[in-house]
């Protein structure tokens, strides 16, 4: 009698600890996904902040390129005010394209290319582009881990009970856009 009771209690204890462990791991993984998502926003904002500075620097050297500069500013403002994931993705890609054009154009201005401030900005923008795509990559990696956990047994039972749902992946629709948003200098 006593032995049976002890066995039952031990089994209950194991089950309780198992549930706590799974629950905590789900919370931890979901938190990682959320952090990864907010990191993307941080890096996008970093890019918005760099652009006015860049435009000012280029303006001094390439006065005749007002059109390209305006395109960059417009693309930036559109990206800042974009609503929803879809629109945001489009605006960000337009901005990447406009920036690429701006840097291609700088080839024609040797003085500009030798400017220390411009070189520093070039590096900052290159790193920002990398940061954005790395942040997206990290978001997708951690989402994959989290989703696998949510969908596999036995965590899926708890996930259902406590409302842990799969997160969407960050996807770029157009194949051309999928190609590295890398700024080449």
């Amino acid at each position, binding site marked *: 009698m006593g032995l049976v009771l002890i066995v039952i209690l031990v089994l209950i204890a194991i089950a309780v600890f198992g549930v706590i462990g799974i629950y905590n791991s789900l919370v931890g993984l979901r938190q990682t996904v959320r952090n990864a998502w907010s990191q993307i926003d941080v890096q996008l904002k970093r890019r918005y902040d760099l652009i006015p500075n860049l435009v000012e620097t280029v303006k001094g050297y390439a006065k005749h390129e007002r059109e390209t500069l305006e395109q960059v500013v417009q693309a930036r403002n559109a990206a800042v005010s974009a609503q929803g994931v879809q629109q945001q993705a489009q605006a960000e890609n337009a901005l990447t394209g406009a920036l690429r054009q701006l840097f291609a154009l700088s080839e024609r201005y040797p003085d500009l290319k030798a400017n220390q401030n411009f070189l520093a900005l070039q590096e900052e923008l290159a790193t920002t582009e*990398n940061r954005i795509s790395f942040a997206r990559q990290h978001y997708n990696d951690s989402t994959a*881990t989290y989703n696998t956990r949510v969908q596999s047994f036995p965590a899926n039972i708890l996930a259902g009970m406590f409302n842990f749902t799969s997160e969407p992946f960050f996807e770029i629709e157009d194949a051309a856009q999928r190609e590295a948003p890398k700024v080449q200098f």
Partner: protein
Amino acid sequence: MATTFNTLIAANRRKSTWLVIGFLVLFMITVYAFAVFLIGDDPRSGIGPAILALLVGGLVALLSYYKGGNLVLAMSRAKEIKKENDPQLWNVVEELSIAGGLPMPRIYLIDDTALNAFATGRDPQHAAVAITKGLRSQLERAELQGVLAHELSHVRNYDIRYSMLLAVMVGLLVLLADVFRRWLWWGGGRRRSRRSGEGGGGGMAIIAVVAIVLSIIAPLLAKLIQLAASREREYLADASAVELTRYPEGLASALEKLGKDKEVLEVANRATEHLYIVSPFKPFEARAKGMLSTHPPLADRIHRLRALEGSGPPR
């Protein structure tokens, strides 16, 4: 992906614990043996010193754990840098920490023209990466990214903890054995001749035996250091680096440059050799074919990286 990383982390933590235990036991036995031989024939006379050794050893282990990273960096004469000193290097490291979801490690430069890099620290929150000025100046951005991704992979899977403890604690044991051996050869011999009338000859003979045993153990321990950083660890870090950058060619071409460099890195020694991305003692390609090498042959690492090319999504 996450499961493999968690398995690696767990394995490295476990190995680190066993390393500390092994170090304490070895240290205690050594001190006990010395004490018994020095104080007298009673085996109990060694217990006190052995307990003292446990305390001292524990202190050394704690110091290795909390200060080992700084010690390794100081030994390699690495200087910490800030973003203003080298924005591109700083940016590359920060990008990669974002890719791996890691905190930003400290960055160090080693003032040497030899090409090399390493990472150390006890966990990702207390990690540091170090790169020689020679390597820094020779690499393109993508190559730099590959090398640092390799180092951050060591950080991410806790290789750094194990190799740091190994460098500091086993390095210390080797050093002690070396010092003792020299003392016995020179100072010890003189002392014995002065005290020859006291009849301590028997004890000294035993110490001499112990010393000889120790001097055999010391190089063996050094080999242990080298073996612990198994080739597998380096291959794994290469593969994980590609998982971060999704660009195998960056690291492959950096390794090619590292392979061409024949310069010896003076600040590296037998205790820290296994930390580096390529063996700091060159030429090492010939030795790498031997069983007891810390690093796999570079040509093979490059070949494996190039085989990954095009297998992942373009970025």
